[in-house]
């Protein structure tokens, strides 16, 4: 919906993501703020944004799989782990530069995704969810027991370098992670609007009907898995080189659950929803971690820091509330808000 008096006068304008001059100004300002942030932002927030940006990439892959293509997956964290370990193995064991290891780890994760996604051809919905859960456990077990992944010791992943300059701090990694995140967002947004995205939506809504309309289910379901896991692999590689260390315990099943929660809170089937959901849930978890010393003070009997327990509970309550009161997520609220301010003086 466009504001009063704004018209799209040609096809190019009509299909553009950023349509009006005001939107361009806001976008450029936001990019300027985003890219100058490390110059004045606190160290803590830079680390937080790095983490969020990596999560956004992984969740965006899940959004393409689950929100667009209807392939429910608990395996996103496992594929992230595959990307991270591939990147670490390539860069530390074989001495590849990060810039090559990053796309390769995405592709490797995508290929594993195709292998893991083959059950999707026969099963869907909840059955697929459990099959991907099985994949998570199997991948975690393999990583722990193979020699090449370092097993229980984990692997070192060198910081990315250009010449003699090493990206070894949060501030410098910020300039790798955030642009990659923006690039992937651009990619995802345009993919979702293309023929592939529309085919995904058709498969999601009813795969038999989609097949009847001439959509090759075999191809599009596996493509969905490939793209989703490609995103996860990229996220994993960035994570590995940001942490400079990978270990299987950095990729718990709980994160896969959080990813799905982020999608629900943000809204399934929208790219903006990924940002809303990820930021919302990440801030919620941060707030719980932040508040846990105080809470421990209130309930000294609890002994251990109740952060993890309370975080899980708070997350669960949020999901329950969203499922009951706003199943379409924050992105839907945002659209309602946008429509109302654009129409402002009028009701509709």
């Amino acid at each position, binding site marked *: 919906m466009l504001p009063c008096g704004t018209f799209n006068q040609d096809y190019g304008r009509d299909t553009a993501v950023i349509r009006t001059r005001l939107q361009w100004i806001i976008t450029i300002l936001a990019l300027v703020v985003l890219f100058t942030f490390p110059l004045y932002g606190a160290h803590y927030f830079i680390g937080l944004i790095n983490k969020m940006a990596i999560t956004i990439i992984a969740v965006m892959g899940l959004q393409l799989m689950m929100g667009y293509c209807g392939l*429910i997956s608990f395996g996103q964290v496992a594929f992230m782990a595959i990307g991270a370990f591939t990147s670490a193995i390539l860069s530390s064991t074989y001495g590849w530069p990060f810039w090559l290891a990053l796309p390769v780890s995405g592709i490797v994760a995508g290929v594993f995704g195709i292998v893991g996604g*083959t*059950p999707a051809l*026969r*099963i869907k*919905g*909840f*059955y697929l*969810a*459990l*099959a991907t*859960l*099985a*994949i998570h*456990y*199997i991948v975690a*077990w393999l990583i*722990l*027991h193979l020699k090449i992944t370092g097993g229980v010791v984990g692997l070192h992943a060198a910081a990315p370098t250009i010449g003699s300059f090493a990206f070894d701090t949060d501030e410098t990694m910020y300039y790798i992670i955030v642009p990659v995140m923006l690039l992937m967002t651009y990619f995802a947004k345009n993919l979702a609007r293309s023929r592939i995205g529309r085919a995904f939506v058709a498969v999601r809504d*009813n795969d*038999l*009907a989609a097949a*009847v309309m001439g959509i090759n289910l075999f191809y599009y379901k596996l493509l969905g898995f490939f793209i989703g896991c490609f995103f996860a692999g990229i996220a994993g590689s960035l994570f590995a080189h940001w942490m400079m260390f990978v270990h299987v315990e950095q990729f718990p099943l709980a994160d896969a*659950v959080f990813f*799905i*929660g982020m999608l*629900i809170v943000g809204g399934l089937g929208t790219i903006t929803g990924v940002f809303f959901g990820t930021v919302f849930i990440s801030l919620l978890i941060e707030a719980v971690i932040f508040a846990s010393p105080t809470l421990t003070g209130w309930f000294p*009997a*609890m*002994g*251990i820091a*109740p952060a*993890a*327990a*309370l*975080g*899980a*509970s*708070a*997350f*669960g*309550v949020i*999901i*329950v509330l969203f*499922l*009951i009161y706003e*199943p379409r997520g924050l992105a839907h609220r945002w659209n309602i808000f946008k429509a109302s301010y654009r129409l402002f003086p009028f009701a509709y």
Partner: protein
Amino acid sequence: MQFFLELSVNGLLIGGLYALVALAIVLVCKATEVVSLAHGQLLAFGALFFYAGYVLLGWPLWAAGLLGLACGAVLGFAVERLCLRPLIGQPLFSGFLMTFAVFMVLDGIFALILKGQAWGFPDFLPAGNITIAGARVSLGGLSSLGICLLVFVLTVLLFKYTKVGLGMRATAESHKLAQGAGINVRTIFSLVWILSAVVAVVAGVMLARYYDIRFMLTMVAFKGLVVAMVGGLDSLPGALVGGLILGLVENVAAGYLDPYVGGGIMEVAGYILLLLILLVRPYGIFGLVRIERV
């Protein structure tokens, strides 16, 4: 051979417990079409209340058992009434996510109650071993399997021969038709949740006897799900067969393969089994094959 026998007998003993967890999940899934993870917490809380009654308050066994069952029933009713009823009419997957969210909420509370420790569970069943066909079997394990089978049979009888059970089966067939025939589907939903929670609590108390009350106890819900899917999500006998198969496969695989691969087979064996079964029979061994139409 001796080794194999002992492994399989122990596997079957645990498998009976898995079957009971799966039975609870299958009951709910059959009637309400929601696949539930929340039972992992229901059984843990049931075991917790049993512990509170039996050990902390020193009540007799039957009173503590009743307390555990009652608590499970109340919790199951609350989950259905507060969380799942508002979702009637929504896509089925949101029901599963809701039970997952409930799982997370209760998980946090469970962790806070446990304070990071494992509570040693009293062995309230007869101690000692007997020898069957050359394999040593613990009497406690055998009687817990017996209790599980008893509960299983009672549930099946209830499903088959009572009016409430008939209502549940009709609801499982079709919500609309059941409603048209004068069955109050909402009441049936509540009843099914209460029944399945009670079944889950029995399984929980028996499992806690093996594993103590510890944080990981709730994760048995995932095993229950695996069993339910291996057997078929809408099949009661499937739950029993699937449970026994999973227990057997897990134990035998762990016994024979663990020395070669360095442990942890127990955790993955079930999932590998699940993947294989899903590839061959997507609806489980006894599951109803649904023919889809556009």
